């Protein structure tokens, strides 16, 4: 359990590395993640930090919510989000977090709401292959058979059929932080991220870091193996 932050997707661009490689990156605004409330085991049954993000005019906040912000000495925000944390690691109330939480090179998991695609057929929604376009085929993008006959006599649950697509929460794991720009309050992340521009994102430390670390180790081992015979040859 560790600290994550709330962000806002600003859009994508590209960055040139020193060797000339162009890296596709997403820019995420993260400055101003303020600690609103601290949840403790004895009072709430669990320990967590509630962060607020994106300043909101006081006049636009309902009075009960305004009371909540005032009680904890925070300014009104559009977004509130809790992150479970160990009790001894809880930050001071009122602390403001920004891009410095994730220095360059860190791997992060990013969640967001994907762009809504509306009501889509089965080819677009589930990548069904569809049927032949020509040769007398009069069936092109249909789902085909959706079940058997009197046994089992029903269409199975979760059968892939046409329907609303997109607008779901999705997480992309192990994205690399390329730049952590304190002066702009921005994280620059390698690759793409779910959601439209200006949508909210949750940025957390990568949970499957183990797998990545393993891969890196294997790579190192392979490199060492490759280097070893060369060294022998020189002798």
């Amino acid at each position, binding site marked *: 359990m560790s600290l994550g932050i709330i962000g806002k997707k*600003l*859009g994508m*661009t*590209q*960055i*040139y*590395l*020193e*060797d*000339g490689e*162009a890296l596709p990156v997403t*820019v995420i*605004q993260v400055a101003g993640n303020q600690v609103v409330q601290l949840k403790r085991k004895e009072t709430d049954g669990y320990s967590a930090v509630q962060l607020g993000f994106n300043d909101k005019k006081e006049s636009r906040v309902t009075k009960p919510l305004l009371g909540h912000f005032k009680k904890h000495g925070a300014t009104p925000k559009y977004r509130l989000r809790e992150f479970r944390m160990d009790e001894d690691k809880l930050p001071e109330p009122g602390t403001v977090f920004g891009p410095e939480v994730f220095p360059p090179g860190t791997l992060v998991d990013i969640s967001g709401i994907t762009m809504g695609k509306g009501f889509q057929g089965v080819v677009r929604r589930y990548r069904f292959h569809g049927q032949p376009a020509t040769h007398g085929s009069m069936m092109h993008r249909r789902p085909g058979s959706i079940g058997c006959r009197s046994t089992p006599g029903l269409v199975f649950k979760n059968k892939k059929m046409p329907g609303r697509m997109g607008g779901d929460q999705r997480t992309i794991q192990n994205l690399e932080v390329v730049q952590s*720009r304190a002066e*702009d309050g*921005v994280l*620059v992340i390698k690759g793409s991220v779910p959601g439209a521009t200006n949508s909210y994102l949750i940025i957390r430390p990568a949970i499957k870091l183990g797998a990545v670390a393993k891969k890196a180790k294997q790579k190192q081992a392979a490199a060492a193996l490759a280097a070893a015979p060369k060294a022998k040859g020189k002798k």
Partner: protein
Amino acid sequence: MIFAKVLTRLSLVGRQFYTTRAMSIITKIEHEQLRKNIPAFWVGDTVKVHTRVIEGEKERIQIFAGIVIAYQGNSSNKAFTVRKISYGEGVERVFPMHTPRIAKIEVVKKGRVRRARLHYLRDRVGREAVNVNEVRKEQAANQPVEA
């Protein structure tokens, strides 16, 4: 209030006024990527592009010389296409304008063309294929300069 209006109007005039309004962070990041030592050249010009080629651990410079036939994209994503005739075969190469893999761009000759894209050169054979009118001296002064 009036001041703010003036600022918005200025920003509508053109990109060069970006400093007068709050620059978007993405624009700022893109501006950091831009190279500053690029000579002004445009479609129709003959250029020599010095590219860095990395072979194993060695790095050397390779020159690609030809006519600029198109521009694509903008800001840090800008690119241009160079066409040359190599051993009787037309060769085109697209270079990102701001990539560090370009060591230097040399403008050999200024051309006078009436198109933004010289795709018609692809259909030409022989001498005509590389024939782009040169800029006359008095025109050179009025040539639109593009960084």
